[in-house]
């Protein structure tokens, strides 16, 4: 324990450069059976891993696959808990998955063993799975073409690799935030967890692509409670600057975290001082902060523009989409006001969904989803890129389409599915921020910290959160049990003003889909926004 908290805090920026020596502190745990005997897992770029991948590809090819791809993943998880219990929990897993295509049917086989024999077994097993289907029932898969990736390597550009820092230093740092919160006599910390993960991945396909990639995701939950000494009312909120992102420990280190904690405490104090008022259900202009708008972009557009979902591939699990005729709706369907433009990407720096290559081997670029209120794109993978012309019938037209790079499998035991990319909402053209928009509201409602429930078609929504009455541009009271009831297209068509680019904020989001269910993360960048004529309800009132 040569580091003290002080040295860690002052030298953290330099830590990345000393990663080589620091890595001695992290255990070198796992084994791979390369050749005939076990040996420590080599670095992900070791050419012998490519040989291992190739062995599975060969086995799948020999068994009859027309296309196959293989993933090796090695994931490391570390959770540092500062409150309620101080704890460090480490976890590590290695997986391998082989996906094989035979006569338009996919087979998949996965396990936890990186060995020559297992590669052969899985390659054959994936083909056997595919061949268990009735080939007389025609199914055509036309993979959109993609340039071959030749031995690419990429790492999330982190400035502070969290796994290069001795865990006690991290614990010490996380606990220092408790001490800081303790300076506020009316505040205490409910939860203080720092969650770190990194994953090394090797991907190879039978088309000759091979890449290795190391990603980092860092996330914090710092939940602070502030109590009003007079009324004993307490409000609990999470610090909103620690949501998941594709960064290292700079998530904590490169923000003015103490200022942000102070801001949160002061915000809660301001709220505590506002009187309560029963909500008067009616239609009001509603102002939402950037985080709530981001939640809504993710819930109403992120899910609905997945092409597999729009075509019914998720009908039995997470649902379908209001964009239920995607071919006809593309370029014509008005999902919102002309102020609304949203793009998807998996290449923004620090994004929670950011990669260099997706799980089809596609190098993703930014692509439009909604442009001036009109649907201009869908999230696709190589298989679905051509579906807009002939869903699942297969045509060579697929060649004319490009995947948007949304294939994602969290671990190699998961089969790749279309998952939400990072979403970016185009800000307004003025320099307005949240407070400017607030001043423009004569009589209305402000909502923050929304929880959004969508139906299984992402069409009808119900959102609850902290609600405030606004009179003459000022928040005058808190509204008890207020919620918004909305229908997605009407909601976005009622958008009347957006915050400017300086008011844009990025948040990490977590979503799930699939059978079996898979989880994924993405970032959403949004601005505060004002909506006219929203239905505000009393959520506890029955019919």
């Amino acid at each position, binding site marked *: 324990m040569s580091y003290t908290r002080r040295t860690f805090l002052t030298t953290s920026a330099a830590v990345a450069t000393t990663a080589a020596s620091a890595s001695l502190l992290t255990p070198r745990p796992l084994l791979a059976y390369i050749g005939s005997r076990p040996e420590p897992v080599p670095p992900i770029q070791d050419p012998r891993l490519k040989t291992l991948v190739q062995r599975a590809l060969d086995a799948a090819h020999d068994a009859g696959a027309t296309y196959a791809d293989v993933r090796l993943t090695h994931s490391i998880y570390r959770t540092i808990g500062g409150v309620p219990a101080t704890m*460090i929990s480490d976890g590590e897993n290695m997986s391998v998955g082989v996906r094989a295509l035979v006569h338009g049917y996919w087979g998949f086989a996965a396990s936890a063993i990186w060995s020559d024999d297992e590669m052969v077994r899985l390659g054959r097993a994936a083909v056997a799975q595919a061949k268990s289907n009735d080939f007389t029932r025609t199914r055509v898969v036309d993979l959109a073409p993609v340039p071959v990736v030749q031995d690419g390597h990429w790492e999330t550009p982190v400035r502070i690799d969290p796994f290069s820092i001795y865990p006690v230093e991290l614990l010490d740092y996380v606990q220092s935030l408790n001490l800081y919160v303790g300076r506020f006599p009316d505040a205490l910390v409910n939860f203080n967890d720092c969650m770190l993960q990194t994953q090394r991945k090797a991907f190879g396909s039978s088309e000759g692509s091979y890449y290795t990639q190391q990603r980092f995701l860092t996330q914090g939950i710092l939940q602070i409670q502030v109590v009003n000494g007079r009324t004993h009312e307490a409000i609990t909120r999470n610090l909103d600057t620690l949501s998941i992102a594709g960064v290292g420990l700079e998530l904590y280190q490169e923000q003015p975290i103490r200022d942000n904690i102070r801001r949160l405490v002061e915000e809660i104090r301001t709220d505590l001082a506002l009187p309560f008022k029963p909500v008067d259900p009616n239609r009001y202009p509603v102002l939402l902060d950037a985080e709530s708008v981001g939640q809504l972009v993710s819930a109403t557009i992120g899910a609905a523009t997945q092409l597999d979902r729009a075509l019914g591939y998720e009908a039995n699990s997470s649902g379908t989409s209001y964009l239920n005729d995607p071919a006809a709706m593309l370029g014509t369907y008005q999902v919102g006001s002309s102020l609304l433009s949203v793009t998807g990407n998996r290449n923004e720096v620090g994004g929670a969904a950011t990669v260099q290559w997706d799980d089809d081997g596609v190098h993703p670029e930014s692509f439009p989803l909604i442009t001036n209120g009109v649907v201009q794109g869908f999230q696709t993978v190589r298989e679905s890129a051509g579906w807009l012309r002939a869903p699942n019938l297969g045509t060579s037209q697929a060649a004319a389409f490009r995947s948007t790079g949304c294939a994602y499998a969290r671990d190699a035991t998961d089969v790749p599915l279309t998952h939400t990319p990072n979403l970016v909402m185009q800000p307004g053209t003025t320099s307005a921020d949240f407070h400017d928009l607030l001043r423009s509201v004569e009589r209305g409602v402000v909502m923050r910290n929304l929880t959004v429930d969508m139906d299984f078609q992402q*069409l*009808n929504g119900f959102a609850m959160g902290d609600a405030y009455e606004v009179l003459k541009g000022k928040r005058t009271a808190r509204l008890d049990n207020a919620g918004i009831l909305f229908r997605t297209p009407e909601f976005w068509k009622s958008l009347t003003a957006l915050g400017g680019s300086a008011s844009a904020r990025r948040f990490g989001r977590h979503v799930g889909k699939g059978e079996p269910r898979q989880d994924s993360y993405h970032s959403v960048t949004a601005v505060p926004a004002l909506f006219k004529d929203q239905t505000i309800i009393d959520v506890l009132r*029955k019919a």
Partner: protein
Amino acid sequence: MSRRTEAFDRPSPSDGRLLTREEMVRIGDRINGFATGDGSSTVQIDSWWAGELRWARNRVSLTSDRRDIRVSIQRLVSHSVGQAWTNQLDDVSLQAAVHAAERAAQLRPQSRIEDFHPPSPMLPEATPTIWSDATFDATAPMRGTLATSLVSRAEAKGMLSAGFLRMYGSSRGLLQELRGDVAAAGKGTIRYNQFTVGECSMTVRDPKGMGSGWSGLSGFDWAAINGERLADQALEKCLMSLNPVAVEPGRYTVVLEPQAVYDFVLPLVGMTSRGAAESGQGPFVERFDPALRLYRTKLGLKIVDSRVTISHDPNDPLLGVIPEPGLVPIVWIDHGVLTTLTNDRPNHALPLLNENVPSLRRNSFRMSGGTATLDEMIASTERGLLVTRFSGVRLLDGKSVLCSGLTRDGLWLIQNGKISKAVKNMRFRESPLFTLNNLQMLGVPAPIFSAERSEPASAIVPPIKALDFSFTSLADAV
């Protein structure tokens, strides 16, 4: 091997898909050997296999065979607990995980009384047979053939079917009191269990998205799941649900199918926490007793219709509860009276308070029913709604258990004792406490579908007919 073992007298699967008891014992011994210093270890080892088939738009979109392992190691060193996990079984990986757990224990200076769990007593325990060879031995070609049969029914009617078949098997070993010193080696205990889960569900939709029908069933035994029957039900519901009309939100008499009852009652059973009630939270607080300075609970008071009994028996294989120390039969609600609030975790400081057993198995229960059939419920209804299932049920208010959610995949208007038309989905706002006090009829309890649990939890619940169910808004999603 002098180790005490808890009996689960089935031959272990030998094809390598799951770890056997003997393999787990050996892993435990190796972990024991890697421990340094004094203290003891608790190790949980899970291994699982899944054979899955997914289809959509009348074609199989994926068939898969997957397996994985998880070894969770907890080291108790000098009154401090640390843990780590890995999915690798070689010496280097296990040793690294043991050392990570020990390091975590050392780095945890502020261990509190809650951290000290004495080893769970190895009480005589329930050993339900929640293993089915029919589930574990189902092959990919069997799944493929079944899927073709399920899909072709919908396809023949011009509908689109999407669904999921899943056969899952798992073995779990809990090894306790592994002592690091050599003299005590092999003195630990192991509790080993194997279980299976079978799952079949499907959604049949009209190609234009004008109607949707769902059906599904899960349970440990694949042989008890009739996929063809489910496919017929989903198709029939889809065809019946075409071109729904909107009805006014408001209060309706409802006939809820068992799946809808489960979706709706689950939050209520989930709130039967003694700790919450005694700290003044949740629906089961009676009043604050200033003399005792604690909250009196509603134990012993009638809270719902006297025809309702909600109970849990770990010996009931259909509830699929993995045997664990301390799980005993529980009756939460006995003929309408709240009879048990369970602790979330045992109270070690005050062991005498533990007469009510710790139970987090609140999603496995039986709810009593009656003899009425769905047809009888419909025939006796002048005007009401028939609900297939709910989606996205969420608690709005802990005190009243007011919940919100949506109807999904089949909602019909009942008029003059007959199903008259398909209606558009609606969002509801209602409390199961209210509805279970407004029961008119109860039907024969039946098993329901419980998606993708890593444990074979399930429930047996009746269809019900109840009055004044509150639908608050239209949700015209299909």
